[in-house]
């Protein structure tokens, strides 16, 4: 056990525990807030592993942007404040999900076991931001540009989806209005018939 191992175990346990809480809590807003703790401690893990820039991007993009988006969506969908049984599926379904989740963990552990079995501790290689930038804008420049295109497409798609939903809602409203008109017209004839 080296000091790096101890540091990684500390932040890793926080990350795993808050991840567990974020998928099991009954309060929807708490789930997003536990996700903040989990992602923040994962940034600590990246720091321990010597990836300073990835840790910073994790804090900026994940904790700063993605969690804010998730909280925004929770608020816009009128998430109930307080404990709520409706957020999780039935008990049998949850037990099945837990079995499958444990199966995934066991499978990955079995896959990684040969890699770490009797393996000596490795010398940690720190990645400095300068070296990372040199590779990112040298070797990886085309994937990087394609990713910027992907972000643009995602932006346009998000806008298009929200506009399409609004248009569909408008169409549905007009259909409902027509249905209401039809009822109003039918009503007098039905009254007249028995008389």
């Amino acid at each position, binding site marked *: 056990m080296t000091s790096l191992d101890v540091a990684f175990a500390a932040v890793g346990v926080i990350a795993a525990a808050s991840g567990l809480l*974020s998928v099991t809590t009954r309060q929807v807003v708490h789930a997003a807030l536990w996700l903040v703790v989990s992602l923040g401690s994962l940034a600590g893990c990246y720091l321990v592993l010597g*990836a300073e820039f990835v840790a910073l991007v994790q804090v900026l993009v994940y904790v700063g942007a993605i969690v804010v988006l998730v909280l925004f969506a929770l608020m816009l969908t009128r998430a109930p404040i307080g404990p709520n049984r409706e957020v999780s599926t039935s008990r049998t379904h949850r037990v099945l999900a837990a079995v499958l989740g444990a199966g995934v963990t066991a499978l990955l552990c079995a896959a990684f076991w040969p890699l770490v079995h009797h393996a000596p501790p490795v010398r940690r290689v720190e990645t400095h931001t300068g070296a990372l930038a040199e590779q990112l804008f040298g070797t990886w420049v085309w994937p990087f540009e394609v990713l910027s295109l992907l972000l643009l497409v995602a932006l346009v798609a998000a806008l298009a989806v929200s506009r399409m939903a609004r248009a569909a809602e408008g169409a549905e409203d007009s259909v409902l209005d027509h249905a209401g008109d039809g009822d109003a017209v039918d009503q007098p004839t039905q009254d007249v018939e028995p008389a």
Partner: protein
Amino acid sequence: MIHLAGPYLLAAVLAGLGTYGVLARRNAVLVLIGIELVLNAANVLLVATSAAGGDRWVAGNVLALFVITIAAAEVSVALAVVLAVFRLRGDIDLSRGHEDDGAAS
């Protein structure tokens, strides 16, 4: 000096938790939280592999950055879809089937 068993175990645990979150939640936004946990498990693996050395083009770190970018794009489109569904159906309960829609409206 660091043992790689820790990062690998953390990645396996996070992937399992994320799978549980995806399968056991009814609220669509909470399913997204499970997906984020799975993506972070992949990132922990990439960064751990990069930290072990023998990484020629800093590939572990660069790919982790790419995964974070793709996660941001994915979550923005997914939340737009969730909000559109909420506007059309009035809730984002994934266990409510399509046949219930007609009965509700």
